[in-house]
């Protein structure tokens, strides 16, 4: 057994670009390109990055919802690729996903009580008699009332639906949850409640969570470890305090300098990046960030930086950091 609940090595996911009459592959979108991740049990791991950096793809590939192009995923030390289909299905309840969109992720024709409970029956984790009891329990944990049981998704607000989505994942008592931007579709006041719900899960049940977000304030508040993604690669990773205290990668610095501070007198350097992120279908040579990096040199254009350990688990992929 390793120290990590879930580990990914060199994880890649490339999507072919199909074109023409016969759908020939004319290129690849390298959504995720060689990502290493290791998440300790009972912690919340934050994955941050701008839109299109491959965060969602990392989450879904980790759960085996999409076949990976390369690399290795180990859950409790077991390589997921070696599992047969029935074994993988039996493992499903252990690995859960909370969706970003609380509207699209619930079937409009299924009452929420059934939506939360159906997988319990399906995997034989509950008998028919105690099902209702179990579902109501988990609904209570997520802040839903018993009278919500027979209601349909369209009768709920966005925040309540997100609670249903979380309850659906929690009912299976998973070891690992990928929360894919679970609060970005919600009002700020509701966001706080949902975030606290995740924090509570970690304290009470020791659930391990991969928390995908582009909201740095949320990640700083919630996560134990953080990884920053840019264009399909992790550029910097480490414990929260190390990362927020001393960001080393120029991209991380630029990102963190954009976090608003609740002090009107604070004057900070605001790093504004120039240009748009390049297309993951044609990533730049060398360091992928060199086209926008304020410190880029010739070396960055030619040579791709590898992940270097700094102190402890803090690691960075930059020639100059």
């Amino acid at each position: 057994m390793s120290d990590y609940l879930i580990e990914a090595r060199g994880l890649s996911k490339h999507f072919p670009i199909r074109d023409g009459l016969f759908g020939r592959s004319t290129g690849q979108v390298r959504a995720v390109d060689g990502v290493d991740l290791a998440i300790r049990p009972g912690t919340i791991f934050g994955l941050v990055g701008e839109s299109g950096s491959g965060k969602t793809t990392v989450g879904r590939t980790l759960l085996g919802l999409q076949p990976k192009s390369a690399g290795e995923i180990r859950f409790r030390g077991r390589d997921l690729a070696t599992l047969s289909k029935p074994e993988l299905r039996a493992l499903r309840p252990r690995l859960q996903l909370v969706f970003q969109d609380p509207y699209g992720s619930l079937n409009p024709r299924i009452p929420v009580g059934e939506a939360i409970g159906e997988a319990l029956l399906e995997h034989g984790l509950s008998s028919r008699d105690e099902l209702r009891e179990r579902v109501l329990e988990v609904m209570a944990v997520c802040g839903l009332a018993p009278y919500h049981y027979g209601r349909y998704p369209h009768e709920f607000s966005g925040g309540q639906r997100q609670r249903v989505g979380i309850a659906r994942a929690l009912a299976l008592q998973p070891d690992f949850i990928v929360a894919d931007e679970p609060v970005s579709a919600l009002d700020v006041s509701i966001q706080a409640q949902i975030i606290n719900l995740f924090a509570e899960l970690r304290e009470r049940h020791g659930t391990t969570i991969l928390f995908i977000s582009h909201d740095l304030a949320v990640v700083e508040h919630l996560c134990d470890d953080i990884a920053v993604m840019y264009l399909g690669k992790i550029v910097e990773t480490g414990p929260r305090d190390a990362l927020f205290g001393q960001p080393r990668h120029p991209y991380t610095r630029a990102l963190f300098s954009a976090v608003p501070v609740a002090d009107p007198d604070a004057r900070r350097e605001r790093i504004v990046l120039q240009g748009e992120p390049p297309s993951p279908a044609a990533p730049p040579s060398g360091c992928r960030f060199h086209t926008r990096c304020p410190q880029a040199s010739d070396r960055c254009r030619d040579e791709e930086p590898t992940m270097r350990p700094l102190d402890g688990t803090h690691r960075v992929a930059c020639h100059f950091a």
Partner: protein
Amino acid sequence: MTTLILRLFGQRRRAEQLAGRLAHAHSPLAEALRRLARNRLAMAAALFLALLVLLCLIGPYFSPWRNDATDALMINRPPSASHWLGTDFLGRDVLTRLLMAGRISLTVGFASVVLSVAVGYTLGALAGYLGGVVDLAVMLLADLLMTLPSLPLLIIMGAVLSELKVPPDYRIYLVMVILSLIGWPTLARLIRGQVLSLRERDFMLATEVLGLSTRRRLFRHLLPNTVPLLIVVATMGVANAILNEAYLSYLGLGVVPPTPSWGNMMDTANSLIDFQRRPWLWMPPGLAIFATVIAINLLGDGLRDALDPKMKP
């Protein structure tokens, strides 16, 4: 039915309550029924259709005439107190025949849609869900059938039936099969498209995350979401099938005498004398076809608006 009657007497509240109790109180289906109950035009159309069906079913029993009883002394008589819609060239009562024809035309329309739904829905759903070669084969066949202009095709098939000397009793079943052959490709295409788009929705990915069985994913999650579309398309399909049956029978290639149908009753309009002097022979079936098709389409529009407000053009 009760809903309809309550609605008619202005008891909207009670009608809606009843509609709510029919399905689960707040299910999308119950809410759709409530929306439908508020649509006056659609409810009027539904009521008209219900009355028409009722009339065709029990009307002939109250008629003093048998639909195939000829009377050599009462040929081509205009409407009178004893024959409300007059008599035809064999002295048969037009009203009684109209109602009997209604049974046939409605049955043919309805049954052919049930058939084409059975074929079209199954093939469409399979094509959408399985994709690949199945999808390609089904869609190729559907496209092929859709490219053939339906009227000439119907005429050719009707002519073949006539040539084979199929007895009139059997013919109506064959007409149903022919009509469903024309009807299924449209339905299959629509259902396939719906399944394709549903498959990509987050809640279908959720069923995979939860590790649900294929059976449950298909029959509890995917297919129930295609039912609104199915209801709407099938309803409109009945109108189409009734029209197609009328074309065929009018041309003498569908339901053939002595079995009455609205289409073959219109046949009398082919004769100049009947057309000019004896409108009671062809106007009633013409109006029946017209009113039925309009009513079904209005009901279909109402259903579409009620089931999925987003589908509204």
